[in-house]
């Protein structure tokens, strides 16, 4: 008699906050909204997050289709493989950014069928009227993805926005070069507006744009203030939830809905802090997610950490804001100039601090600040193989951090068996997988590493003087 096999059941991911739990339906509605918008003849743009054009497209009533988001959804629903394979069959390398591969596979399939691929996650993403790319100085896929997909949609034009920022160099004073970058970015954004006016047949409403830029700035400050509440012990919200709450941060910037979401989250976190309600009942370890896009198909790994008493009060990933007062944006009534200043000042915010610590650099300085502010016991990073942009340099950052920052006092046995004081770096863990390609992931290996890391944290705590 054949043995009965247990049906594999995926446990539902647990959220610590109600706000994070609302994101799924919100995103589903947004994706469905793009399909509806298409049917209603609204202007639809393929867009990338963190490109300084959120308020611009909102002011012109353009409906964005966030293609990275859709690939992340396919990954989270563990339904990206067929789109990755489709892209591979089109001779795109499997080593490319898997957001792009997923999108390329999906779009080619949709165009080939002239309808959504069968059982497309959450109804699929709508065909755009135009595409707005921007690789900035980081990401080749965000420059090339839409050019590649244009093969399958030759009637869909692209505008590529140049958004550089000054690199961190010891001998360059940012104040001396900023104006050049601002001038360039303002030109790029004005060029974008002209492109959008041509494509939509509508003129920019400059008053509305000013209002939305102001709303965007208030949203940034509100998000920062809200996330800072996670300094509390026990932490009321973790990175697992933040991978949901990033949606209104980067996909709904410049909307009242996005702002209101964080008002609600702010209140919820304050209530939890007042009740001393943390992510876990018995919080043993506070961890920093120090870099790396998450494996969208394995967000339940955060729950696994939680089951060991480990929480993530803070992360660098998708925390793409600083409070506006810190950025010292010069006074200007021009909303485009404000966007340009916000861009430059955000990306160079940590430079001055980094210069004050020998051996540091902006990303490392940010890690140190978070370690101290959030009382961090250990650092976790994720190396996603297909994303060199965000992941190349993570190990260097960790190494550099270990060299220049040793906050843990321990007693060790010296060579003459005498006890001596020493300072140690924080324990760290590097997970290896991908953002969308689940074939890169082994739950057994990942959880084995997490188990070993928890044991390391335990020993470090015991040995701490």
């Amino acid at each position, binding site marked *: 008699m054949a043995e009965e*096999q247990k049906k594999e059941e995926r446990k539902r991911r647990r959220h610590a906050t109600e706000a994070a739990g609302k994101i799924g339906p919100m995103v589903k509605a947004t994706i469905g909204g793009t399909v509806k918008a298409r049917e209603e003849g609204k202007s639809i743009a393929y867009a990338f997050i963190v490109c300084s054009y959120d308020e611009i497209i909102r002011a012109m009533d353009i409906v964005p289709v966030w293609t990275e988001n859709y690939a992340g959804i396919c990954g989270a629903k563990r339904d990206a493989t067929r789109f990755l394979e489709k892209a591979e069959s089109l001779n795109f390398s499997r080593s490319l950014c898997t957001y792009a591969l997923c999108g390329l596979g999906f779009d080619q399939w949709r165009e080939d069928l002239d309808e959504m691929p069968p059982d497309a996650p959450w109804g699929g993403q709508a065909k755009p009227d135009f595409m707005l790319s921007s690789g900035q100085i980081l990401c080749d896929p965000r420059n090339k993805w839409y050019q590649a997909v244009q093969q399958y949609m030759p009637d869909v034009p692209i505008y590529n926005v140049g958004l550089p920022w000054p690199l961190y160099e010891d001998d360059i004073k940012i104040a001396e070069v900023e104006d050049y970058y601002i001038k360039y970015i303002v030109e790029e954004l004005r060029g974008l507006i002209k492109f959008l006016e041509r494509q939509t047949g509508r003129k920019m409403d400059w008053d509305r744009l000013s209002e939305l830029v102001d709303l965007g700035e208030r949203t940034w400050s509100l998000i920062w203030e809200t996330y800072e509440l996670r300094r509390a012990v026990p932490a009321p919200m973790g990175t697992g939830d933040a991978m949901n709450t990033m949606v209104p941060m980067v996909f709904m910037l410049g909307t009242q809905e996005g702002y209101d979401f964080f008002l609600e989250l702010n209140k919820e976190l304050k209530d939890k802090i007042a009740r001393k309600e943390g992510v876990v009942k018995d919080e043993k370890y506070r961890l920093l997610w120090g870099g790396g896009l998450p494996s969208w198909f394995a967000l339940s790994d955060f729950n696994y950490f939680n089951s060991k008493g480990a929480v993530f009060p803070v992360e660098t990933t998708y925390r793409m804001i600083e409070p506006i007062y810190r950025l010292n944006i010069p006074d200007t009534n021009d909303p485009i100039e404000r966007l340009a200043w916000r861009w430059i000042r955000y990306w160079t915010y940590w430079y001055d601090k980094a210069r004050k610590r020998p051996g540091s650099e902006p990303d490392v300085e940010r890690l140190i600040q978070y370690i101290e502010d959030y009382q961090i016991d250990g650092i976790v990073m994720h190396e996603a193989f297909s994303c060199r942009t965000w992941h190349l340099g993570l190990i260097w950052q960790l190494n550099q951090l270990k060299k220049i920052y040793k906050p843990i006092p321990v007693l060790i046995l010296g060579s003459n068996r005498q006890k001596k004081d020493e300072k140690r770096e924080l324990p760290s863990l590097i997970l290896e997988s991908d953002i969308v390609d689940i074939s890169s992931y082994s739950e057994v290996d990942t959880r084995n590493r997490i188990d070993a890391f928890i044991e*390391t944290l335990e020993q470090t705590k*015991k040995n701490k003087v």
Partner: protein
Amino acid sequence: MTQYFAGVDIGSTMTKVVIMNKGIIAFNIGPTGPEQRRLANKVMEKALKESDLPFEAITYVVATGYGRINVPFADKQITEISCHAKGVANFFPEAKTIIEVGGQDCKGIKINNGKPVDFVMNDKCAAGTGRFLEIIADALGIKIEEMGKIGLQGKNPAKISNICTVFAEQEVVARLSEGVSLHNLVAGIHESLANRISRMVNRLHVVEEVVVTGGGAKNVGLVKALSDKLGYALAVPPEPLLTGAIGAALLGKDIADKALHDGVSLETKERSLKEIKIF
């Protein structure tokens, strides 16, 4: 009353059990295979038979290794990182860095007083593991146990450029047919493996004393190549396959001692040996 502690290390390739008192009373090493993962009870039975002890005499059982969840009679499961740290420190109290070359993975562990403080793992690629050596030994028609001595005789190690185990195998066969000597080929294989391992381990900032353990430590040629690459002398425990299981047993003793010290009862599983039910 004499206390006995058992450590069960179910690795990807080999299963190891030790029973300890003040030293090792009995041990058993055998291939894991597909069945062994659910037959940890059999391995334990063999070790008990050798020690002439009933299972009830074992005070505490700790399981480790990838298969540790398949040991239903274990009182606790602890990762091999902690167990190797403890086991190595038992032999080398001054040890600061451990390199474990296992059948299907490779680890670097930094330790302080026998406790792990940092680690790196390679578990995605066979090219840094014992499996690499098995595949090459098979391709060359030699026994894996002989590789160490054969490699030591190679004075001009061949350069094996491929980092992928499968392609390295092809390269080795091709070089053999070109007339490269077996000794130099095997020496080259050891160098290639040492390169892969050292690249991973160097992420930890290696500090002496460095100990190599796991099945790979039994290969004298690999140990020499690794020592040359890292620039450190490498210590090897008396039976490198057992350090994980020894560490597990010693950690079990620590748990029992702590319970006694704290005046709490030691929670243990029922002392009965059953195979795990997977379906």
